[in-house]
């Protein structure tokens, strides 16, 4: 059995969102990943975030590369079009899709092998271009699907299940995304729903390249002693800088907060990001400070999580290109074809 449809029995008591949809309307078919795989928790968080944001499921396009992580779009948003492309190349496919129709919401799901190894170039260039998307890397430090080889995010010195140490330097995708101009950068942990769901919500509401590095332990190949991507290791070394709340609509924040403890960022679509600070010296709107903070804490062996950077005024690829507001895929002959008269004029100039 290779396809497992979920019974679509609606429980009468299931809560509905603003569009009258229940959580079930955002689900996909049953996951075939290993029981306990971190990736499944991220799928659940995506479902939760989309439900809470009242997003019409069919207006979301979900794209991925190849890997266990890249399989997950089958397991959420069953009413959305999905595209499981080729290994490491989701960013270009997503970029093209976005060029074709700027009105949909684009969700790219990838793995650390997919984005930091084979697809490092495409990851980087999609960020540089400011593609309006939510790009989530489900980061387990290994190639789960091909049975546990190290990926490029594996930490130097980390041990494989067979006890072999990784000698190569790790790529920190968050650091790279910051350097390449991502306008929304977060890191989280599949085991921390409370932190992850609002991070995804903020990213979906963000205009521009939103990147989330989500540590997501591979229970089968990378959850042992000596791994730096195991549940235990990540929990012990997690250093959250803030706690995010995404508030929709234009309602004002009324409650009083002690000075310096809360930061409010208004995004393009009017959504408000309320950041409750955990690290007092952290300013999520200062890219350079964020990069420094990240490096310093990395040197101490800490895994910095939270909303690490956001630019509330960000634009996207279409703004840079000057593309028409009307989606390109919906343009008709009159909008696209210059017609015979223009051609006659051109002919006359070529004789």
């Amino acid at each position: 059995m290779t396809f497992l449809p979920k019974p679509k029995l609606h429980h009468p008591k299931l809560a509905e969102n603003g569009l009258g949809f229940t959580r079930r309307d955002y689900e996909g078919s049953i996951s075939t990943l290993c029981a306990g795989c971190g990736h499944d928790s991220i799928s659940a968080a995506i479902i939760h975030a989309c439900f809470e944001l009242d997003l019409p499921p069919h207006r979301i396009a979900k794209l991925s590369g190849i890997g266990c992580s890249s399989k997950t779009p089958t397991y959420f948003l069953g009413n959305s079009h999905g595209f499981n492309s080729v290994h490491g190349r989701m960013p270009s496919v997503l970029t093209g899709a976005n060029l074709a129709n700027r009105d949909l919401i684009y969700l790219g799901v990838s793995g650390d092998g997919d984005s930091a190894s084979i697809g490092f170039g495409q990851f980087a260039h999609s960020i540089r271009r400011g593609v309006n998307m939510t790009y989530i890397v489900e980061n387990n430090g290994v190639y789960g699907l091909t049975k546990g080889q190290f990926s490029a995010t594996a930490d130097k010195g980390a041990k494989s299940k067979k006890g072999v140490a990784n000698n190569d330097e790790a790529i920190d995708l968050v650091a790279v995304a910051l350097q390449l101009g991502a306008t929304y950068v977060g890191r989280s942990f599949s085991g921390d729903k409370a932190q992850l769901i609002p991070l995804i919500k903020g990213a979906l509401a963000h205009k521009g390249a939103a990147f989330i590095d989500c540590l997501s332990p591979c229970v089968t190949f990378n959850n042992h002693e000596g791994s730096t991507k195991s549940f235990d290791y990540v929990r012990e070394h997690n250093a959250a800088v803030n706690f995010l709340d995404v508030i929709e609509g234009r309602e004002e924040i009324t409650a009083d907060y002690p000075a310096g403890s809360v930061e409010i960022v208004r995004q393009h679509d009017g959504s408000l990001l309320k950041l409750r600070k955990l690290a007092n010296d952290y300013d999520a709107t200062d890219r350079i400070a964020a990069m420094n903070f990240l490096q310093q804490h990395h040197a101490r062996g800490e895994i910095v999580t939270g909303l690490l950077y956001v630019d509330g005024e960000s634009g996207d690829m279409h703004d840079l290109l000057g593309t028409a507001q009307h989606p390109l895929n919906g343009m008709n002959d009159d909008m696209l074809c210059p017609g015979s008269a223009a051609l006659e004029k051109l002919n006359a100039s070529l004789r």
Partner: protein
Amino acid sequence: MSQLQAVNDFVVKFANVNGSGSASANKLFAQSILRMGVTATPRNIFPSNIQGLPTWYEVRISEKGYMGARGGTDLMVAMNPQTWDQDIKSIVPGGYLFYDSTRVIPPSKFRADVNVIGVPLTAICNAQYTLSRERQLFKNIIYVGALSALLDIDPDAIKGLLAEQFRGRDKLIQANYNALELGRDYALKNLACPIGLTVRRADQIGDRILFEGNAAAGLGAVYGGATVCAWYPITPSTSLAEGFTKYCEKFRKDKETGEKRYAIIQAEDELASIGMVIGAGWNGARAFTATSGPGISLMQEFLGLAYFAEIPAVLFDVQRAGPSTGMPTRTQQCDVLSAAYASHGDTKHILLFPEDPNECFVMGAQAFDLADRLQTPVFVMLDLDIGMNDRLCAPFKWDDTKRMDRGKVMTAAELDAGRDFGRYLDVDGDGIPYRTYPGTHPTKGSFFTRGTSRDRYARYTEEGAAYQDNMERLLKKFRTAATIVPPAIRRDAKDATKLGAIYFGSTAPAMDEAIDMLAATGIAIDALRIRAFPFGAEVETFIEEHDQVFVVEQNRDAQMRTLLINELEINPKKLQRVLHYDGSPITASFIAGAIEDTAASLKIVPLRKAVS
């Protein structure tokens, strides 16, 4: 010494230094001949990797209207000291050498059997102009002036062109006229004008236009409704994306808001280019990339995905000599097989073969209809010879009643009406399923696109039967394609013959001439120009009706012949190779010679001899 004598039938070659502003002067020369109603066919020759950056511009003038390369040079305009020796060598005996005689060149540097025409271009220029940029630019116009006197070209034809080129800038027009007259005066006063080679007014051109194949294909993409272009620079395809950009800016930019009804991305590599094209095609936009052989190699994995997941995509492959970097600025038709069977696994792709800029335009637009109709990648196979040269061709035409054929796209209304939607379901028996654009309907018609096997309703499956069912449907779709792609064009000889020739793409003008050459020696041959793959029934019929068929192509391994043998199960013995692949454009004399030789070795008696 003998002096070559010819009216409207000779080859002039300009040897220049790149960046000396010679390109526009040389084009002016070619256009002035066209304005006199005589066929002139220019070709750029530009090595990619030689110091001093020499470039050559060859103009073939043909009373009979032949536009293929001829080979040999009758008049060499030697403006590049670095290539002097090689240039002198290429002149035919009795031909002419035109050079700048300001500096004395030792007699040993000339050839005894070549007529030498010295014009002190630098001296004339320096006496007249002081600014170095002026000196450089007008020197080119001065030699055009001198050549016009030597070849009896109507100066008014040149002046007319200059006036059009610099319309509204009267000072510049006058300055160019002056330079032109400087050259003419010198030649008329000091040299025997005209020489043995002359241009005589004729009426061969009609309403034809002079245009570059790459720009024509880019223009075709604009007319074809392409909105997304993702590309990575590579010779000789770059000017295609640039052409698209130019015509989009002209025709697709909102006059008031400046909003663009197109998006062009210079991607980070060819993998990203084709990835973007596939993403855009999946999402319902018409998208294309322009590249050459090395780019096609990089795109292989993605092309298998597009074939298997059935996503429209258009690729312009402007072919150059491979393998690897090969001869990057030389022409070949060497990607036929790598495009036809691109990617791993069982794949087949649609190929179109334009013969000239007009067909680059037509097929450049049509490719998008075919890609949408067939939901698969479509390759438009240009080559450097058509892509990067100006060529005389029929004027562009467009039918304003024509509408884009978006193929089988199911709408929200159809879904609501309860139509069964299976993404890979063959409802019409032509192998082509329906698709939906993402975002069409809140609860119906969504599906998952993947490169892994699935059933007719796009559900993942590893069942062999379902996989095979899908692969068979893809074959059926390919058979449908054979009935809607542009058919091959057949031209039979006047006399009945059992000899046939198959050719395609940029070989066309040389083939036309070769047929005449062969006819003159008594060899009658029927010709078939293939315009697309998969082959229509007419191709098989043509081969069946002939005893021997020559397959003329510009690559080493007879790739089109292989494709014919493989796809139509032709007896290989029946298909004779005629292969030209040194990187220069194929010539009529090469084709005629090769066919004559083979015909002789096969003991095929020329018709006339058989009769007499």
